[in-house]
């Protein structure tokens, strides 16, 4: 290039070299700061029902859906077993820790049962992954669905470990640092912290070699092998990583409900996670939480709306189903896809100078 081009990478690099490096604070987008302030101050201006039931549950379901988003969005593997992994982690907390069902629970201290629950659930996820990654598309869905169904029926019929149909009640979080973590405000911050941690981990790992390679195996497994990657091992490890996230969600879920029973990880719950991930959008991790929030709001408030119209409040599933159909029909990449397209259009309108679509 003989002519000096002010937008060439060399020129840009030269300018960047002269200017001081931006602080990490400056590199965080404004939207993230706004969301952080909204979330952190929410207990000050929102009711306890809203922060405990609506927001707490959204964070939990969002984490479980996030583990599916990680596998499906970055790895191209639609796993229906994520709710089951969460359920297993919840069960492990109930079985190993103290509960109201003292005849079955072992009553171990928290520093044993919390790590054990996460490790066992992640190991289970890894095992399922080792089976599922040898298949593709619909067959991955079928295998993971079969395992989810088997887990549901097993927990319902096994009384020695899982206490069968009745499950466990009074599964309470340990009173660490003298705080009752099941009070709305502490639980809200606990769920917010865990959700933020998982979200941050997924965003970070997506750009680390492991996450990039996972996206490579999604786009082109054959080429990944031709670059020296062991595609099978990479996919199995993705299940492990997603398993840890789902396990954290499952532990919070059992604490929020204070009980766990086979229905917690029953097939309707398994499908709900898929619906949440699809509605939110699987392209980016935000989608999982957006989908969970929409689901929880519909689930919480639609019975009121339905009874106001003289319909049975059992019909809330109809509303969720119709919403799902509408999203899939109008925006296959979920609410995030709608948002992205709207932003792209707005930017195009605003940028007549370069005339470029970007």
């Amino acid at each position, binding site marked *: 290039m003989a002519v000096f081009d002010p937008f*060439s*990478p060399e020129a840009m690099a030269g300018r960047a070299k002269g200017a001081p490096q931006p602080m990490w604070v400056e590199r965080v987008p404004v939207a993230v700061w706004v969301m952080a302030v909204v979330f952190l101050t929410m207990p000050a201006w929102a009711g306890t029902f809203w922060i405990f039931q609506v927001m707490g549950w959204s964070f939990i379901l969002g984490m479980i859906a996030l583990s599916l988003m990680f596998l499906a969005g970055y790895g191209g593997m639609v796993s229906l077993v994520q709710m089951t992994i969460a359920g297993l982690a919840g069960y492990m907390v109930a079985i190993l820790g103290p509960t109201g069902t003292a005849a079955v629970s072992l009553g171990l201290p928290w520093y044993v049962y919390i790590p054990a629950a996460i490790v066992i659930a992640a190991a289970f996820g890894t095992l399922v992954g080792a089976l599922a990654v040898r298949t593709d598309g619909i067959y991955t869905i079928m295998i993971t669905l079969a395992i989810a169904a088997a887990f549901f029926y097993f927990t319902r019929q096994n009384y020695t470990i899982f206490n069968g149909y009745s499950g466990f009640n009074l599964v309470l979080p340990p009173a660490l640092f003298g705080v009752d973590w099941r009070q709305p405000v502490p639980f809200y911050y606990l769920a917010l912290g865990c959700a933020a941690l998982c979200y941050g981990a997924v965003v*970070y*790992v997506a*750009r*680390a*070699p*492991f996450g*990039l*390679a996972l*996206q*490579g195996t*999604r*786009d*082109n497994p*054959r*080429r*990944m*092998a*031709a*670059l*020296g*990657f*062991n*595609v099978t*091992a*990479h996919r199995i*490890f993705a299940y492990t990583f997603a398993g840890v996230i789902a396990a954290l969600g499952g532990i919070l879920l059992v604490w929020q409900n204070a009980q766990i029973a086979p229905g917690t990880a029953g097939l309707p719950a398994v499908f709900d996670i898929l619906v949440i991930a699809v509605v939110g959008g699987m392209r980016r991790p935000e989608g999982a939480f957006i989908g969970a929030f929409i689901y929880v709001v519909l689930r919480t408030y639609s019975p009121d709306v339905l009874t106001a119209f003289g319909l049975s409040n059992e019909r809330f599933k109809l509303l969720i189903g119709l919403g799902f159909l509408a999203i899939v029909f109008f925006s296959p990449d979920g609410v995030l896809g709608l948002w992205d397209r709207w932003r792209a259009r707005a930017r195009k309108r605003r940028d007549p100078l370069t005339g470029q679509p970007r």
Partner: protein
Amino acid sequence: MSMADTAAARLGSVSAGNALELRGVTKMFGALAAIADVTMTVRPGERRAVLGSNGAGKTTLFNCITGDFLPTSGTIRLFGEDVTAFPAHERIRRGLRRTYQISLLFTGLTVADNVYLACRGVSRARFSMLRPRRGDPLLIRAGELIEAVHLTPARDRLVSELSYGQQRQLEIALALAGAPRFILFDEPAAGLSPAERRELVAILTGLPTHIGFIIIEHDMDVALRVAESVTMMHNGRVFKEGMPAEIEEDAEVQALYLGDGSHAHG
């Protein structure tokens, strides 16, 4: 047996250091032999062109060498090591590389990410959960490779937005990542403009001399300019081997390439 004899025997057992050695490699698809009883050796640093009409088995040969397919019978040795039963990624980690006839790229990632992944694939810490730092040697190496194939202006663009010619250039960058010792180029010039072909020849002839390669190419101008030896394939078999000049003047080869039916039995 003297010391020298045992040394010679040991050398013989590692095939006297051939880069690539195929013995009786056959690949059947059902009853059809895509390649049949192919035997060929390539020295380290040697540049070989594989010619032949469509369906001669050239790409199948590549797929057997890289491990995309396992051969039905025969053995494949890479730098003396029997890799016949190795999965593709193990062969790549031993210095083998390839490009694909139809670009097989990561369309959802940027050019920089594609090349960075290629550099990662043959390094350690493929599973690293830590992001690379600004001065990461692999990032720098990826930048150099992007420069080497003239894609620096497009480094942050998604591969799905690149032109066909740019995708072919990226294809070559991926094959050059890490420390390649032997590269298989599958029709790198297909679909390129005359100017892009000249650039390709410059890239290929400019490769370090210790890197050998096999190139499948229909464009004789490209193939014979970069290769020092030629293997002609026909109907899945090796039909002729020789120097470029010999092959060019060979009557049977000319008949095959010019489509003279009277020699088609060859």
